[in-house]
Structure formats: C-alpha cells, structure tokens
C-alpha cells in the first residue's frame, strides 16, 4: 500500500544525526572551507568515537548487507518486512550534508572503497579490511579510485593495469588515478586503504576491469596531488599514482577472472547514486531553510493558496525551491526504498541522481540570488552551499551520464544505438 509515512528507524536516525550536524558540523563549516587541506580535528574525533561506538556501522552496514538478504523471493512466500537500510542511510546522509557536505565526505569512514569491499568481497576480505573501521585506535578512511585523466564517465576506458606476477602471486599495479575522495586521508594520513580499478587485460574491455584493495603506505603508491576545489573543500580529493605497486593476490575483489566483472562494479552505482542525491538534498534543504528564515525575518510571507501569478517573484521562487527539494527527496527515497524492498532500481537510482543534481544546483543558486549581497557574502553559508552542491551534479556520474542511463532504460536502447 502506498505510504509516505516515515519509518521510525529513519526518523530516529534523522533526529540523531541532525543533532550532530547542528552541534558540531555547522560551527566548523566555514572554518573547513577556509582551511582547505587541513583536518577538522573536532569533527574527525567526534565521528571516530561514534564509529567505534557502532553508529556508523549501523548506518552503513545496511547498504552492503541488503544484497544478501534480498535474494529473489519465492512465489507465495510472505513478504519480509522491509528493513529500510538504504532509506536510513539516505536520511543520515541528508542530515550530515545539511550540517556540512564537505565534512560529511571527510568523516573517518569506510567510504565507497569500504562499501565495495562489503558488497563484492569475501567474508575473509570483509574481516580483513573492514574491521579497522570499528576497532582501530586512530581515525581511518577508505577510498575508491576509478577516474583517470583520460577516463571520467567512460569507465570502460580505464588504462591503469594490474599484471599478475606468476612468481610471487602478486598484482602489479600501474597507472594514475585522479579525483579520489579522501584518497590522501586513506593511504597517507591513516591506516586505511584505497580500492583501485584497473584492467587485467585491456583487450577485454570492460570485462577486464577489476578492483584491488591497496593498503595505506604500500610501496609504489604515491599521492601526487591534492586538488583545490570550488566546494567541499573539507574533503581531500587526491591524485594517486601507482608505479609497479605490488598488491597481494587476495586483495582482488570478486572473481579475478576476466568475465563480466564490470557489470557488478556498475551496479554499485545503484546504491551510491541515491546517496549522492541525498547529500545534495541536505545542502538544498539547508539553503532553503535559511532563505525562508531570512525572508520571513525580513517581513516576507509565503502565501500558499493564492493565485500563483499574484505571488511575489521571491515568494514563487521560494515555493519552487521547496518543491524541488521535496521532489528530489521523494525520487531519492523511491530509489532507496526499492533497494530496500529488493526491487531492481537502476533506472530510479539514475533518475534520483540526475534530477536532484540539477534541482539542487538550481535551488542553491536561487538562494544566493534571492538574498543579494547577503547571499553573496561569506558571512552566510549560502554561497558555500551553492559551491558544495554543484559537485553532486558531477561525481558518481554527471547529470548527462545519468540522463543517458535513464534514456537508455526507458527507450530500451543499448549503448551502441543511444550513445
């Protein structure tokens, strides 16, 4: 039955994380933006103590666990109660990003690399690589390295290579990765790791691409650059070069053989794209709320119900901003709920990402515009939210790439016809 009732688990997480966002994140938001490439100790330590307390695990374990639990149901079998792990995660990410999207990305956390291990790794790999996120003494990060200077959206064009040394049974990685979120934190500043995508066999195209866990400080791996960015400056975005970097055989995730490895890797996007959308929504909501607050403080009213042509331009913009935030959340929740309910959500994951990336970019732009000099000034966070929001229309697949996914799915066309 159709219901928009917020599950109690979701509401609880929202409330909990909101407190954290309000109490810790907001006060460091401007500082972190001003101090690019510096670590916000209070935030990292707070989150680390919570991670060790199990909070992050309870929030994030869900994303990975669902795949095992949601095996195809037998006909007639009573449907299991949906557990809403993805929805809970979306709610948490929204609140964290409402607090600060940069700090959210910078929190000590297994990240996308850990998620890949959780999703595609064996029990032994999970044990070996993930345990640290709840047991280590100091904060630890995990990262994912996919993009290369010559391969952005076109992941099949990856040129990094992984050669197997038959003698030592080690993988030898070579190549350059860019735009690795928390890359430096993961491999230089903590005892974390990065999951790097590389090709075992470049002639095999997508099927040859595998992912490899590379531990911190592995010889042959080097962080060559940390980017200066438009927004999300609290988060480090690193370039990592692998030069004859040797990785143990057992660090390959999933089947090491060359056969359809790629589809599985792409499928992780179905879980992560709604989370990127959720992050955008948190930023958009922050901007909307602040904008409404200032507008109303300034004597403005929001006259819902009157002829829309009679609203003021600002009023109408505010209402459209509100609608865009709501719509974005509904689409994202739909995608997350489908994952929770074990329904294939490839289309909906891309819908949520494509629409939200664009919608929230617009919302944060409007917020700055509506507030004039106040919006443009660094005295408010509005200008920062605009800068932070934009990344969500870019990473984990640009708006164009996600629209392409949507178009292919609804037209039933393949990548050869609809390019």
């Amino acid at each position: 039955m159709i219901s928009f009732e917020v599950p109690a688990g979701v509401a609880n997480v929202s409330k909990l994380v909101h407190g954290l966002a309000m109490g810790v994140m907001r006060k460091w938001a401007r500082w972190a933006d001003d101090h690019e490439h510096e670590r916000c100790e209070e935030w990292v330590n707070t989150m680390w103590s919570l991670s060790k307390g199990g909070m992050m695990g309870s929030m994030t374990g869900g994303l990975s666990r669902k795949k095992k639990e949601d095996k195809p149901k037998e006909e007639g079998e009573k449907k299991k109660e949906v557990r809403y792990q993805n929805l809970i995660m979306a709610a948490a990410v929204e609140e964290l990003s409402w607090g600060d999207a940069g700090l959210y990305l910078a929190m000590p956390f297994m990240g996308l690399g850990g998620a890949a291990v959780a999703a595609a790794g064996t029990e032994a790999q999970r044990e070996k690589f993930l345990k640290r996120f709840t047991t280590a003494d100091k904060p630890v990060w995990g990262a994912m390295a996919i993009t290369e200077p010559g391969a952005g959206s076109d992941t099949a064009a990856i040129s990094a290579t992984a050669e197997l040394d038959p003698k030592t049974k080690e993988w030898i990685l070579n190549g350059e990765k860019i735009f690795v979120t928390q890359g430096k934190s993961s491999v230089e500043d903590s005892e974390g790791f990065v999951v790097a995508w590389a090709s075992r066999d470049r002639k095999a195209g997508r099927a040859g691409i595998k992912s490899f866990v590379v531990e911190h400080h592995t010889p042959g791996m080097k962080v060559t650059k940390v980017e200066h960015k438009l927004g999300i400056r609290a988060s480090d975005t690193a370039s990592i070069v692998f030069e004859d970097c040797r990785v143990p055989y057992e660090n390959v995730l999933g089947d090491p053989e060359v056969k359809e490895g790629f589809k599985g890797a792409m499928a992780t996007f179905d879980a992560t794209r709604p989370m990127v959308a959720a992050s955008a929504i948190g930023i958009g909501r922050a901007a909307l709320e602040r904008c409404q607050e200032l507008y109303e403080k300034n004597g403005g009213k929001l006259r819902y119900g009157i002829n829309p042509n009679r609203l003021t331009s600002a009023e109408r913009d505010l209402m459209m901003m509100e609608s865009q935030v709501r719509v974005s959340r509904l689409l994202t929740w739909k995608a997350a709920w489908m994952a929770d309910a074990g329904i294939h959500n490839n289309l909906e994951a891309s819908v949520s990402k494509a629409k939200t990336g664009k919608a929230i970019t617009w919302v944060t732009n409007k917020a700055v515009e509506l507030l004039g000099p106040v919006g443009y000034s660094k005295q408010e966070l509005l200008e920062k939210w605009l800068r932070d929001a934009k990344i969500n229309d870019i990473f984990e697949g640009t708006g164009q790439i996600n629209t392409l996914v949507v178009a292919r799915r609804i037209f039933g066309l393949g990548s050869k016809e609809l390019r």
Partner: protein
Amino acid sequence: MFSLELSEEQRMIQDTAKSFAAEQLRPRAHECDEKGALPEDLLASAWELGLVSAVVPEELGGGGMKRSAVTGAIMLEELAWGDLALALAMVAPALFAYPILTQGTDQQKKKYLPLLLESKPAPLTAAVIEPVINFDLSELTCQAKKKGAGYLLSGKKCLVPMGSTAQSFLVYAAVDGKPGYENVGGFIVERGQKGLKIGERERNMGLAALDTVGLELAEVEVGGDAVLAGGPSCDFGKLMSYSRVALGALAIGVARAAQEYALEYAKVRVAFGEPIAHRQAISFMIADDYMEIESGRLLTWEAAFLLDAGKDAFKEAYLAKLYTDQVVIKVTDDAVQTLGGHGYIREHPVELWLRNGRGFTTFDGLATV
C-alpha cells in the same frame, strides 16, 4: 510505512481505469474533440464503472468504500491518459457530491448522495472558477449576502463542467464579501432558480469534448438548508486541496500520455538514417519528461496520502498542483516538438494533449478525488 507499492484494491481500480482508458477513451478521443461532444453511451459506460459512486455510505444504499485521495489520484491519472475531457465529465458529479459527503448536513446527504447510485451520471456539478483575470480562490468575486435564514448569490462563474444538463450546482461564493478561504461558502442552486442564467456552451482552447458553461447569478436566493455544512462558510481549503490533488493526477495522466507517445514515435521515426531516439536532443528531452512526470506524480501522491491520513496538506497540495501544472505544459510541448510537423496536425493526439494541458493552470476546482 514508506512504500510505493499499490494495494490490491488500488491495483484493481488502476487496472479498471487503465483498460477503460485504452479501450474506450483513447480510440474515441479525437472524434469527441472534433465533434465537441462526449457521446451519451461513453458517459454512461464510464459511469457504470462505479469509480465515483463507490464511496456512497452503506446507510444510503451505497458501497461505503473508504474515500481515498491516493486511490483517486491513481484512477484519474489513468483516465486522463485516455482522455481528459471524459475524465473531467466523470468526476463532475463528485464535485457536488463529495463536499456533501464530507461537509454536508444529514439532510443534504440524504437528498443528493443517492443520485450517485442511479444508472446514469448524476446531474450534479459545481461552479468554482470565475471569468476574470487574476482569478483567485481566496478572493472570489461571486458574493453571498445574508438574507433571512439564507443568502443572495450574485456573480459570474465559468468552466462549470456538464453544466448544460446539470440539475444542481454547488456554487462557491465569498460570504458577505470577505476575502480568504475561510470565508468561502458553498451554496446549492437548482436549475431553473430565479436569477440563475446558464450560459451557452463555452469555447476554449482545449476540452472541446467537455460540456462547460458559464453561470450568471443575479441575486439568486438560497435557503439556509442549501448552504454547505449548514454555513455560512465551509472548509473550502480542504475541498481545494482535494481538487488540487485531482488536477495534479490528471495533469500527470495527460503528460504521461504525451511522453509515452513521443517515446514510441521517436523509436520508429527515422531521420538521417536512424531512429530519432538515437539523438540525445530527442532522447534526453523525453528522459527529462519522464523524470518530471515521476516527480509530479510523487508530489501529488504525497499530498493525497496526507489528506487520507487526515492531515491538512494545504501547502503540499498547492505545491503539487503548481508543479504538475508546469510538467504538463513542458511535456506536451516536447511531445509536439518530437513529432515535428506530424505533431502539429490533428491526426496525432499530441496537439490535443497540448491544448488540454494548457488549461491546468486555470482549472482550479474543476475536479476532485
């Protein structure tokens, strides 16, 4: 808890509406539009589906189904996918009956609700919209002045659906000239009452198949027993929220019809050696429309869900309508654009959807769930 899965009942009603739309409405929509009429048999068979009348309470002889805005939205989307004019004609009696059902006096319920159970469409309708610029539900120019136990109604209305044949009209007016939703009253006016002039069939850009008329009221006298909720005012905001949900669903139905048609056309229409669907300018536009339809539907359903849950939902329904109003304008225009010259001729239905779709910004109060 959060779910977007239809219940068994919802799926059944959706299927019924979908089949009727595909089999009865879509094939005849063009002809109805060109002739400017919905044939009696179509109206009758639509009525026989019982989609509007199911909510009549058991004690009045009805099925006593719980009224659900969500279910109504699902149904209306399907019907509008078939044909908007027919969908609006079908729900016209509900525009009168549902406010009576929820806010009417016992006497009003007994008098009017059983009409829904007749085999032919009940001759009931409502008059909300006024033929003025900047028409605003919170500032109706139609006025009700207190006179004795009743009221004198004066003013003009337009876009009254099925008004040529309706026997009873629920006319909304500002009580004692006061602005605001809270001062709007609903008044039952019977055909033939002194001072009521029912206009000629209207001519609008769209909805040609739907009978709509204007009303002129010159001090029409309404007794105290003909005032909705016993008067003086009613919960007009709630009524309009139901209306906005209905219009949102209808707009999504029209938009979906157009988007699906354009999609299929783009798959088969070949230009420059390939189906035009292979061009991003076309396929991204239609993908974007798909996303906007999803967006509008979810906003509408959420507002509907809140109404069903007994919430106010005034803001949510308003925002949903604002949003879907624009969705249907964009999507139907895109569909005509996708078909190019073929979209501009009346052999293809997209231009009809474009014309019908242009009305949603104006259709306040023209439907309900």
